[in-house]
């Protein structure tokens, strides 16, 4: 089973990489861009668990290691 995890900086947390990229996009003429946030895209392959259990397990992985809840939000997508 393939699992995708999206980790992004929390709203309100300074994202210097996003800020720099926003500045660069605007200087290239893409003035319609008002915000850029840069996070992480992590894919996992799980074996020997059903989808329900996988969801709980990945949730726990995110809370313990993959994301830092002080500065990051995360979202999990499971391909069934």
């Amino acid at each position, binding site marked *: 089973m393939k699992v995708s995890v999206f980790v992004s900086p929390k709203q309100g947390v300074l994202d*210097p990489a996003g800020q720099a990229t926003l500045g660069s996009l605007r200087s290239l003429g893409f003035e319609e861009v008002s915000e850029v946030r840069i996070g992480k895209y992590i894919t996992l392959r799980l074996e020997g668990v059903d989808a329900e259990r996988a969801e709980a397990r990945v949730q726990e992985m995110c809370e313990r*290691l993959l994301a830092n809840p*002080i*500065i990051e939000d995360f979202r999990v997508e499971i391909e069934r």
Partner: protein
Amino acid sequence: MKFGVVVFPGSNCEMDCHHVIDKVLGEDVDYVWHQETDVSRYDCLVLPGGFSYGDYLRCGAIARFSPVMEAVAGYAREGGLVIGICNGFQILLEAGLLPGAMLRNTCLHFICCFVHLRVENASTPWTNAAAEGQVLRIPIAHNEGNYTADADTLRELREQGRIILRYCDPEGAVSEEANPNGAADNIAGICNEGFNVFGLMPHPERASEELLGSTDGMVIWESIMAHHRGKG
């Protein structure tokens, strides 16, 4: 006094710390490999700088689960002295032994230079050899030293005197211009509630000999030793 310098795969300042403790302070010191599970024989543990586990995922995030960290947490709970320098500070944050988190430097590049630091609390195991308000000149070298925490945590740190070092100008004025990485409240170093765990971004081991251009880092080591001798 017996120091333990904890070494993670990717640490790279452990030899500098070992050298200062052994050759400059003349104290007993061991390297402690990250797979060790007993740290009870030490009087002070040092988590050195570097790039533990390549800083993959987040700085300190993987090191925090090294076997030794459970022992370090237990040691800290019992009041043992733990100092985390740079990557060591990041590991203490990820481990929850200190509050808050690190973001990338606002300037977006790696900074390696001398900075000035104001001693905000001189009655701790880490700063008792300094005068309150004393300005230290110690180098930093990091990509992610932009300390952040929620407003309640920052207020708690302030009210409890747990902000130990702040970035300042050579005269000791804390200002935005003197903040190299964007850290909240110009924070360069903080303590836990018991003041026995200390994390700081600057490298005192790189400012402990004349040859290196500053001996201001000695204040930290001398404070630790004074505290251990019961004079702190």
